């Protein structure tokens, strides 16, 4: 028996395939692009090929992410909150607070002592402080988004950014460059701004952070600079699983196994 989880996000479409013991056989991340269905097909093909599994051998598919209802053949569609929660509890048991920063939204999930979702919050109204925001800033800085984490180390004092609106922050970044502020300092400032915005969201569901085991997932968790900034803002270590971008798909596959594994 094989179980497939597919997370159709705004920027990436992720797939994770499990065997009947819940072990991860393969996982993949492909860009979502403009056509969800193509990305879903590609992610599915890739993950099946990597594991050497035929489509007929998949017992159940559970989809998640904003495009979850577009996954054909799914046995269930489950929200990304529940899937990320399930995924992180399997990858990093004991997590009491999860911060997920994806392409277009960010979320915080607080867990009870048994690992059940106790509360959650998602970003308000706009995509400030998410993967899209960082992409736009990287463009303004003329660097690759994947390089931001490393650049952050170069800055000593971070630059101060007064706006988190993607449009205004982009022009602010451009003027900082024009003023000769070091790229590393700008990047550090950006990461700090994201951390402080995320802290606002986290505090809504977890006013008291003391003693909480915190983990981070989502593509932005690859950025060590954001993780460091978050850790400083929260005042505690932030754990990142080995493949933070597939936590949702992994959780979806685990749910498929639990619900439909017989």
């Amino acid at each position, binding site marked *: 028996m094989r179980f497939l989880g597919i997370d159709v996000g705004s920027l990436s479409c992720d797939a994770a395939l499990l065997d009947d013991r819940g072990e991860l056989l393969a996982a993949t991340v492909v860009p979502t692009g403009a056509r969800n269905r193509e990305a879903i097909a590609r992610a599915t093909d890739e993950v099946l090929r990597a594991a050497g599994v035929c489509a007929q051998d998949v017992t159940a598919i559970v989809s998640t992410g*904003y495009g979850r209802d577009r996954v054909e053949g799914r046995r269930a569609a*489950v*929200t*990304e*909150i*529940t899937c990320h929660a399930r995924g992180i509890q399997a990858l990093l048991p004991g997590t009491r607070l999860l911060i997920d920063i994806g392409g277009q*939204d960010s979320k915080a999930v607080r867990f009870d002592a048994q690992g*059940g*979702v*106790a*509360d*959650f*919050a*998602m970003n*308000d*109204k706009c995509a400030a402080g998410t993967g899209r925001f960082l992409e736009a800033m990287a463009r303004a800085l003329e660097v690759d988004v994947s390089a931001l984490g490393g650049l952050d180390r170069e800055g000593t004092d971070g630059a101060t950014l007064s706006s988190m609106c993607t449009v205004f922050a982009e022009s602010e970044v451009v003027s900082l460059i024009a003023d000769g502020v070091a790229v590393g300092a700008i990047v550090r400032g950006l990461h700090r701004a994201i951390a402080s915005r995320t802290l606002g969201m986290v505090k*809504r569901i977890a006013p008291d952070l003391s003693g909480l085991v915190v983990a981070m997932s989502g593509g932005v968790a690859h950025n060590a600079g954001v993780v460091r900034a978050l850790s400083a803002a929260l005042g505690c270590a932030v754990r990142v699983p080995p493949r933070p971008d597939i936590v949702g798909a992994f959780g979806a596959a685990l749910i498929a196994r639990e619900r439909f594994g017989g």
Partner: protein
Amino acid sequence: MIGEYFAGLARDIEAKLAAEPAASSARKVFALEVARLGVRLYSPGRPVAWCGVLAPFDLLNGVGVTSCFAEFVGAMLAGMGAATPPLEGAEQAGYAADTCAYHRAVVGAAMQGMMPVPDFLVATTTPCTGGLAAIENLARLFRRELLVLQIPRAETEAGVRFLAGQLERLARFAAGRAGTALDAERVAAAVELSNLTRGLMVEIYDLARKVPSPVGNRDLANFGIVVPLLMGTQAGVDVARATRDELAARVGDGKSGVAGERFRLLWVQNRIQFPNPLLKLLEDEYRAVIVVDELNDVTWEPIDPADPYPGMARRAIGLPLNGPAERRVARLRQLATEYRVDGVIHPCHWGCRQGTGIRGLVQRGFRETGIPVLNLEVDCIDARSFSEGQLRTRLEAFLELIAGRPRASA
């Protein structure tokens, strides 16, 4: 346009009820009386007053003035899917786009000639200063006299006397505008009808508390905020009685409002007024039912017909939306317990300082009781800001969270 809409709606419902009396339902009776109120508001030659939400509509009905709170027009326009032109009109005239869209829609509607010119206006200082400002704007636009009811925030004897005096002056003024002298007997008769409606509302909410609840997600939508417009008239009694009877019959037949009721929810403040798929999602996919709306509540005592003003004053002052936030949060917690809800949905209507400002306190209040709260970022009137996918994800995730917990009604 709105006047014709009401007239058409009233005609349609009347024709349907005449052709098929057995197909009558409480919601149709409610819609018919609301449409008739709309027709009266939009018919020339009758004294009409545009008011704030906490105006004493039974008193105004009792002195022969057709009255309505202005936000009603915003809700109607949104319900018809027609709020965008007035919203844009108001914004182009300089009304800030981050103010409450109920008020933006109403000011835009007035500017675009969609609202009848009233004889006078009655603003109330609560529940929100945005409402007061909107009525002031309307008074200026229509060049009509404005009365402002100053509603004290605390229920003291002096405060009650202060407001009761204002209400009596309002009654005299309104009666004068209706071309009569203030007739205490007519007012008393209206108060009797208002008390009857109130009693029926108490029964309705008692029925809604049952497990499973006989109410569906639409049965009592906007009920507690709109029925006061009919109070003091036989129509108010008829609507409330039809609703009570229908719910009682369902309870008698062992039927629930949502088949296989699974989750019971409390909805804070206003419903989303424009057509949207969220209620259907709650019902069809999760068998979740909004058993209680914050605004479906009776928080006042019957009013003495022989001396109505102090009772009316107490009613306005004692509303949980007036006064300190702790009182409101305490009442919400009480409702959640009485109705045995599994979760609370708080649509933090954009532009409502009242609603968004209290968000943290509501959340903290419920955290202490262990009842989860979902804050929705939504504009209940302005469909231009509606992001279905975002709201759907939050709502579904919330129901998934609730599903993992023991039922409050177990």
